[in-house]
């Protein structure tokens, strides 16, 4: 067997490590450990000269194992593996000791920290001796991209990728794309109309030769890994032939049954067969099966009779579409906080307590009131209160700030001033106007004579105490600037409800094995330096599924995710992780326990030359090691995490 020659390098990390750990002493000690032929300390091992030390020693001293003790391996293990590889050493013959995050940064006592660093280095030296070179294989990659969610984030990402002439499958669960942005009236702080800037993009998606739009569809299953995902999509039956439907809208007109429109937030009606809104893409009708009288009672079919294009098809069935893609972008957006949960605000009990999105539809010229701000009885309000932070910045609901409410609250104040003669009261905790042009807009609205009351609203009631309050909604709040409880009688209350994770975020996270933060939004790979990647290679996130944000930030993130996907595509191949399970066929008794415990169907008991043994499909194996734990004979092990390797560390750490 080849003699093991290990080089050990102790990083000072400036004073980050050297300030607490006696790095020279650790290096001296490392030199006394078995197999170590060279041990050095250096100011910054990750720098070019630091890496050159390793490369030169590999070449000049014939090192065949390398250990660096520095920051977390999550930071620089790839750097030093690459350095080894550059010098011709297999990167899996490298081991990393974490003496910064796990030592110098969490302990004060120099002696204690130095002893701990020595232990960690000793464990790494013992482990690396047992490490084996692993072969890194590459396989071709599918350049197609799946984008889940057709709001502005999904639309932007789709266009960026499709304009690079790569196939995009855009899956949207609603009958039309556009998401929440399509429901907005004007966008802060420029007050440009949301539809006007969104519609051209939606049309482009609908017509793009490289975008396959699967609207009214849901992703049911995703298998595989970066480069080769297999996706199953259920295309729900619209009971209308998308190819034949001309979107003329006659069916909806003739449909005798009208129900609350989801798009209009229940302020307007739609037919049971309907096109959700005027600019909908795809511009085709959908039958709401749950509420269609034909489906419920077996009679009607009025829409079918009036459809000249013969597009209505009551026999249509859900269709299962199988897709193959190389990367996935999640742009699934957000849900709005249900204002009923804070019952003291009276949403659902009082007619004129609205949510922001309902008010949004009201100010929209194409909306249910034709752009007029009206009370339920058709009058114009004389006083309006805008309540901030409904469900946000509240320990009982969501601790985070929803980031958009201050600004849209200001926008509402401006629109109320512009469209009515009403007095406006903003009830806020803090005004957070941090974006481009936001502060200027805040000042503009202040100058328009809007009243700002700093304090959280306790209650909205219709119980009047004075004559002035009769027939009004009374907003009770603590004015923290005046230091007293105030009662503001108004006609209309607008609740700025929190943005929250989609109710099915947990299922989606499980499907793709990505993580969620404590608040439920999807977790990025690194909060600052890798904000659109996830723990799963080839899966990216953008927009509000990652956390509340406004349209410019959403679009920027969507383009970032698209760039990440394009970089996967342009590389053209994926590296297959060699750190997967392997079977020692001599020891294997073909008991099948590995097959039973594996969630990825990687090990299978097969017949090989007439002998039954377990065999691992490396493409399916994720290297979690569950099979190795249950294997009764020790035949199963995970490369680079073998029993011997991990035991050697445990032993080494307790040796002294």
């Amino acid at each position: 067997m080849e003699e093991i020659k290990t080089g050990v390098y102790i990083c000072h990390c400036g004073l980050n490590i050297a300030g607490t750990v006696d790095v020279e002493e650790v290096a001296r000690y490392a030199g006394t450990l078995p197999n170590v032929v060279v041990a050095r300390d250096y100011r910054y091992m990750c720098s070019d000269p630091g890496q050159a030390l390793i490369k030169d020693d590999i070449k000049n001293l014939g090192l065949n194992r390398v250990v660096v003790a520095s920051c977390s391996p999550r930071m620089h293990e790839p750097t030093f593996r690459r350095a080894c590889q550059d010098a011709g050493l297999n990167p899996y013959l490298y081991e990393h000791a974490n003496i910064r995050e796990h030592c110098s940064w969490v302990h004060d006592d120099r002696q204690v920290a130095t002893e701990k660093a020595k232990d960690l280095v000793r464990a790494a030296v013992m482990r690396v001796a047992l490490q084996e070179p692993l072969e890194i294989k590459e396989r071709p990659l599918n350049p197609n991209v799946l984008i889940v969610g057709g709001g502005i984030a999904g639309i932007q990402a789709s266009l960026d990728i499709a304009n690079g002439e790569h196939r995009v499958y855009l899956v949207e669960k609603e009958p039309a794309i556009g998401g929440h942005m399509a429901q907005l009236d004007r966008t802060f702080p420029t007050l440009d109309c949301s539809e006007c800037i969104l519609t051209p993009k939606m049309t482009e998606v609908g017509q793009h030769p490289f975008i396959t739009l699967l609207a009214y569809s849901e992703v049911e299953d995703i298998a595989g890994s970066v480069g080769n995902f297999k996706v199953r999509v259920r295309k729900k039956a619209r009971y209308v032939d998308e190819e034949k439907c001309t979107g003329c809208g006659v069916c909806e007109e003739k449909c005798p049954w009208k129900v609350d429109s989801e798009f209009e937030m229940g302020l307007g009606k739609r037919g049971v067969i309907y096109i959700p809104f005027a600019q909908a893409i795809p511009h085709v009708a959908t039958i709401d099966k749950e509420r269609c009288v034909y489906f419920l009672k077996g009679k009607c079919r009025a829409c079918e009779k009036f459809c000249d294009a013969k597009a209505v098809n009551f026999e249509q069935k859900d269709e299962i579409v199988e897709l193959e893609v190389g990367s996935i972008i999640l742009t699934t957006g957000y849900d709005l906080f249900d204002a009923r949960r804070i019952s003291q605000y009276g949403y659902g009990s009082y007619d004129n307590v609205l949510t922001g999105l309902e008010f949004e539809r009201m100010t929209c010229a194409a909306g249910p009131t034709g752009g007029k701000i009206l009370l339920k009885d058709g009058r114009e309000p004389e006083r309006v209160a805008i309540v901030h932070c409904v469900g946000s910045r509240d320990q009982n609901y969501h601790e985070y700030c929803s980031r958009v409410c201050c600004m849209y609250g200001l926008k509402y104040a401006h629109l109320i001033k512009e469209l009515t003669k009403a007095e406006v009261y903003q009830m806020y905790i803090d005004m957070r106007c941090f974006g481009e042009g936001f502060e200027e807009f805040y000042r503009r609205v202040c100058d328009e004579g809007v009243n700002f009351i700093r304090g959280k609203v306790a209650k909205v009631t219709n119980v009047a105490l004075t004559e002035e309050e009769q027939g009004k909604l009374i907003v009770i709040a603590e004015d923290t600037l005046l230091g007293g409880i105030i009662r503001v009688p108004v006609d209309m209350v607008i609740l700025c409800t929190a943005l929250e994770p989609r109710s099915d975020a947990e299922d989606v996270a499980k499907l793709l094995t990505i993580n969620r933060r404590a608040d439920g939004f999807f977790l990025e790979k690194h909060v600052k330096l890798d904000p659109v990647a996830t723990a799963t290679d080839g899966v990216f996130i953008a927009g509000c599924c990652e956390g509340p944000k406004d349209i410019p930030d959403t679009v920027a993130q969507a383009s970032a995710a698209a760039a990440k996907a394009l970089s996967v595509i342009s590389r053209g191949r994926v590296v297959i992780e060699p750190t997967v399970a392997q079977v020692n066929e001599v020891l294997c008794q073909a008991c099948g326990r590995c097959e039973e415990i594996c969630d990825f169907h990687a090990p299978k008991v097969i017949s090989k030359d007439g002998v039954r043994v377990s065999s691992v499909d490396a493409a399916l194996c994720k290297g979690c090691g569950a099979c190795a734990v249950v294997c009764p004979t020790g035949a199963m092990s995970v490369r680079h995490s073998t029993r011997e390797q991990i035991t050697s560390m445990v032993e080494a750490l307790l040796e002294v």
Partner: protein
Amino acid sequence: MAEFEPKIIALCCNWCTYAAADIAGTSRIHYPSNVRIVRVMCSGMVDPIYILKAFEMGADGVLIAGCHEADCHYLNGPPKCDAMFEKMKRVVNMLGLEDGRLRREMISTSEAPIFAQVIEGMVKQIKKLGHSPLQERVKV
């Protein structure tokens, strides 16, 4: 005589608890230096051998920590680890080790303060228990 300083081995999953310990470092959240962390890819990868080896070698405590069930990078590692842990708890009891020497925790990436609290709590508890009773026996 110097105060008894227990030796604790923490087997931490790469994706959650190891990362939580990293963030404890980045955030300079201090905790007792008695713990030595060994990185494993998944808590479901922790083999009973590691626990037995640690106690055999004189560890005063062993912590197995990884993702919460919903966060697992490998779908279902935590319940597999739980099943192993329940069995091993009985085994280490049979060996004469007191409750609290073998501990199982779920600590996600965002829970660095919890990681530090767990280590503090464990060190405190084991200081009360004293040296592992196995140490003397192994020496004999």
